[in-house]
């Protein structure tokens, strides 16, 4: 337990300055940007708005104050939990994120579960039938899948399952006609985005499971289990897979940036109303407060993923515990 606490403290000590630096860099980039937020906000109306009113908006937003004061105000608000006002949604950023975060967590969470279960099964089958045509098919498929852009996979999935076969809806959260959100409707709309996200993230995991199960199948304890006459399935699942599983936890943490990337692209392709897709809308509208908050959120997600992976690893592997971390 002490080792875990020490590691958490170590990680947090790294995360806090990192997040501060990220906010400083984002603010500096926004200052260097050629976009004028007021003109962006007004759109075509900027041409007919009188300069006095432009100045008034500037003063309301605090844009007429010196740069360091602006940063201090923004940063102070961030720390106290006030994320500011979205300029494209014309609502508080916290509200915009709040109503979308759940959908993102639902979709990415389901995708991770599916990815885990699917990769374990597929990777173990490939290792068990090593060298067969099935193994070659799985390995080749995993390499091709890794090379295919996720948004392209999403479009192909829409083309096959939504347009040609007509089995599933092409995007959105519910049918356009329905006024309320029902479980069945959402579940049907979730199938394609979740499956595409899971498949696009699974290549490395399938290859990893395969390689480490092959490695452990040669170990003495597996040979011993065979000699005791245990069933092949028991050997595969209880002995080989179990000891091959440990290193995943850290690898999974290291894949968090890719998961965020995948979520952004999949949510955009399938018009899923989550936070990841919203970052694209915020970017297209140059909505700095919303985009900055979402970028910070993405960074926090990656850091939290790394932390969880390390904790799980420390708890799962007694050797790491005795040696200590950091």
């Amino acid at each position, binding site marked *: 337990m002490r080792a875990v606490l020490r590691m958490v403290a170590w990680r947090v000590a790294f995360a806090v300055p990192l997040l501060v630096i990220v906010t400083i860099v984002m603010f500096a980039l926004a200052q260097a940007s050629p976009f004028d937020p007021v003109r962006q906000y007004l759109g075509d109306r900027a041409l007919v708005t009188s300069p006095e009113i432009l100045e008034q908006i500037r003063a309301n937003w605090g844009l007429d104050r010196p740069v360091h004061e602006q940063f201090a105000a923004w940063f102070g608000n961030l720390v106290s939990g006030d994320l500011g006002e979205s300029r494209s949604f014309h609502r508080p950023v916290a509200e915009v994120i709040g109503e979308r975060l759940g959908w993102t967590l639902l979709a990415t969470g389901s995708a991770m579960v599916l990815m885990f279960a699917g990769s374990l099964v597929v990777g173990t089958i490939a290792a068990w039938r090593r060298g067969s045509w099935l193994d070659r098919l799985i390995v080749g498929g995993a390499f091709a899948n890794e090379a295919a852009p996720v948004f*392209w996979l999403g*479009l192909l999935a829409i083309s096959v399952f939504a347009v040609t076969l007509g089995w599933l809806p092409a995007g959105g959260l519910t049918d356009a006609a329905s006024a309320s959100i029902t479980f069945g409707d959402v579940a049907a709309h979730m199938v394609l985005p979740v499956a595409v996200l899971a498949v696009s993230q699974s290549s490395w995991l399938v290859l990893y499971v395969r390689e480490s199960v092959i490695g452990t199948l040669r170990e003495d304890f597996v040979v011993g289990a065979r000699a005791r006459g245990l069933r092949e399935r028991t050997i595969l699942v209880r002995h080989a897979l179990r000891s091959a599983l440990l290193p995943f936890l850290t690898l999974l943490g290291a894949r968090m*940036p890719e998961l965020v990337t995948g979520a952004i*692209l999949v949510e955009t392709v399938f018009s899923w109303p989550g936070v990841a897709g919203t970052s694209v809308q915020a*970017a*297209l509208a140059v909505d700095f407060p919303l*985009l900055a908050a979402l970028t910070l959120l993405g*960074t926090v997600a990656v850091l939290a993923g790394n932390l969880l992976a390390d904790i799980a690893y420390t708890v799962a592997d007694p050797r790491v515990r005795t040696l200590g971390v950091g």
Partner: protein
Amino acid sequence: MPVRLSLAALAVLALAVALVPPIVQLDQSLVDLRAAGQPPSLSHLFGTDEVGRDLLVRSIYGLRVSFLVGLVAALVSMVIGGLVGLAAGSLGGLADRLLMRVVDGFNALPHLLFGIFIVALFAPSPAAVVVSVGVTHWTTAARIVRSEVLSLRSRPFVEAAISGGASRTRVVRRHLLPHLFPHLLLATVLMVPHAIWHETALSFLGLGLPPHLASLGNMISDGQRSLLTGAWWPSLVPGLFILVPTLAVAVLSQRLRDRLNPRQRSELEL
């Protein structure tokens, strides 16, 4: 067998990118509505898009644009990573630890999100894409160069140069850089497909290259419009032009890694 196939695919694509644009002049604004939305056929091998442009020719143009942007972005990230790695490895001590913390920090950033952030604030353009990919992807090169410098520093010829009174810059320039160059070159080659991927992802989101330019990401984004009417080929074809070279480079690098480290040979038999 897969190695030869990969080499052949890369050679064909390289020839196409080099030879087709000078021979077949592509008018980017050409619209031929009589040939609009045709599925793949003998006259248009990969079909035509919604305004009648041949998808094969346009994809080759797109690959050229995406490759150039990807190559420049990969070079930018290699230069940044090389300098950071060299500084960390050869200075050592506090500078090394600080720089490696910076590398850790960059690795904790969601790359595409930061790319989106940068492009959004500086208007979509090739330069913005190059910068946004370059500044988020130099960490691999920095790690490679640093570990290589650390192992070189203890070699006899470097120790001899230092005890002979050579300055730090001279050691770096005459004794370290020539050894680092092949590693950097390989890392650059491996980075190009990833940089192309980033360009296409940003363009697909409408945050990459200007929409009139035929880049693979823009083409897939255009193809999305005709997808719901049943025209699948405008989305499929440009994606294949990303998939094939990326896969070929991955297969070759896997084989090269096995060649270089026979002891860590993976269980992958392609």
